[in-house]
């Protein structure tokens, strides 16, 4: 932790990154951020793993550190608790900005395998799990109605968004 980090070199920054992010309506709060750090202060993940910091990520986006942000495994560490959204004095909605970043990262080949796999299951069973005999047995014991995998409609609507074409990040779990 004591090593000096690489300097931010302006020549390596992508000046268009911030506007690409802001182009998504869910990320429009980014310009209102004044880096107060309320998001990080209330973030449960930041507390157990300080390297994950919403404030830091927001700043990196505004600087144009595209490659560092999109390739970072940390952007996938959000627990989705929405504390950052609830407490932000500027209504930045960091959670929503992070989803925009994750969507961009996914298109660039950085999606964690777990989310890609869940999406595949949704297209097959309608839910995030593959069909298993275990489901049936567990429910039969409790006399609960049988479940039917139903994915026809959902498959049709999500295919057009391109989500089913997303490939998992190489070397990710």
């Amino acid at each position, binding site marked *: 932790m004591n090593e000096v980090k690489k300097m931010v070199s302006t020549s390596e920054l992508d000046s268009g990154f911030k506007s690409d992010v802001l182009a*998504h309506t*869910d990320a429009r709060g980014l310009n209102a951020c004044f880096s107060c750090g309320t998001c990080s202060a209330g973030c*449960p*993940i930041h507390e*157990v*793993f300080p390297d994950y910091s919403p404030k830091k990520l927001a700043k990196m986006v505004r600087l144009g550190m595209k490659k560092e942000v999109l390739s970072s495994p940390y952007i*996938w*560490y*959000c*627990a*989705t*608790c*929405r*504390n950052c*959204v*609830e407490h932000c004095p500027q209504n930045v909605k960091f959670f929503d900005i992070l*989803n*925009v970043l*994750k*969507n961009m990262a*996914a298109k660039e080949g950085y*999606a*964690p395998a*777990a*989310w*890609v796999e*869940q*999406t595949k299951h*949704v297209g097959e069973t*309608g*839910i*995030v*799990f593959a069909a*298993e005999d*275990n*489901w049936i047995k*567990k*429910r039969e014991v*409790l006399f*609960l*109605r049988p*479940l*039917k995998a*139903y*994915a*026809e*409609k*959902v498959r*049709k*609507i*999500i295919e*057009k*968004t*391109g*989500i089913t074409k*997303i490939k998992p990040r190489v070397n990710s*779990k």
Partner: protein
Amino acid sequence: MNKYALFLGCTTPVKVPQYELASRWVCEYFGIELIDFEEFTCCGINQLNLSIEAGLLMAAMNLALAEAKGLDILTLCAACTGALAEAIEKLKDETTRNSVNEKLRDVGLEYKGKTKVRHISRVLYEEIGTEKIKREIKKDLSALRVAPHYGCHYLRPKSAFENFEEPDNPRTLHGLISATGAQPVEYETLNLCCGGKVFPVSEDLSRALVQKKLDSLANKEVDAMVLQCQTCYLMYSDQQKEINKEYDNQYSLPVILYPQLLGFALGADPVKDLALNLHNISPEKILSKVI
């Protein structure tokens, strides 16, 4: 309106069916009619990670299915509740709604913005009410000290829930627990997230959150945690077991779902109606404190 489209979500029906069983029993007890929908799918919350558009479409599709039958949705999972409620907020914008409906038309659906989403606890709190619940209680649970855990998506963002709860100081589950006669215990990490949504990406991070809450409950003389979301349940139950493998079995906190506690207090059969026998850490000891 005491009739709802039952939205089971992905995890409850296949991994925590005891939550479904107890919820159905409690709803039947109070005359809340639940209609099953075979066409419901995942709410879309995890798909937001890869495509905000796909996640919103999935939520809208489910909302449209319920709306076509003129029903509001009753959820069991906090995350489904949040995902659907946030989608409803987004779909209030006409441009967004039109663009979503254009895609839903391909599968013969349209969302007009009528269907609402209500978590089972909210329905019990608002429509049945704690006074009525109290009058129906058959067992004396007053010796039980339980720690409520709300689930992030039941609370935040509060704008999606008509300000139903105060996320920094939530009270509805406390009230529902008190109505059964059990004592809700106050504790420091009440609002700490279970980590369930980061589990697929980092098991270590999610377990760190679980352990933090378990530690903060260690000296509170708590008999059980009471939850209202199956993902939170899996974290505090199954992951408690995993953490124990590394930490010399130091944790032994029973974890149950609110409808199980309520059903038990109302006189339901603990095994047949509530499947209280299906837990990792047996709640038997706590139930023996009940008269």
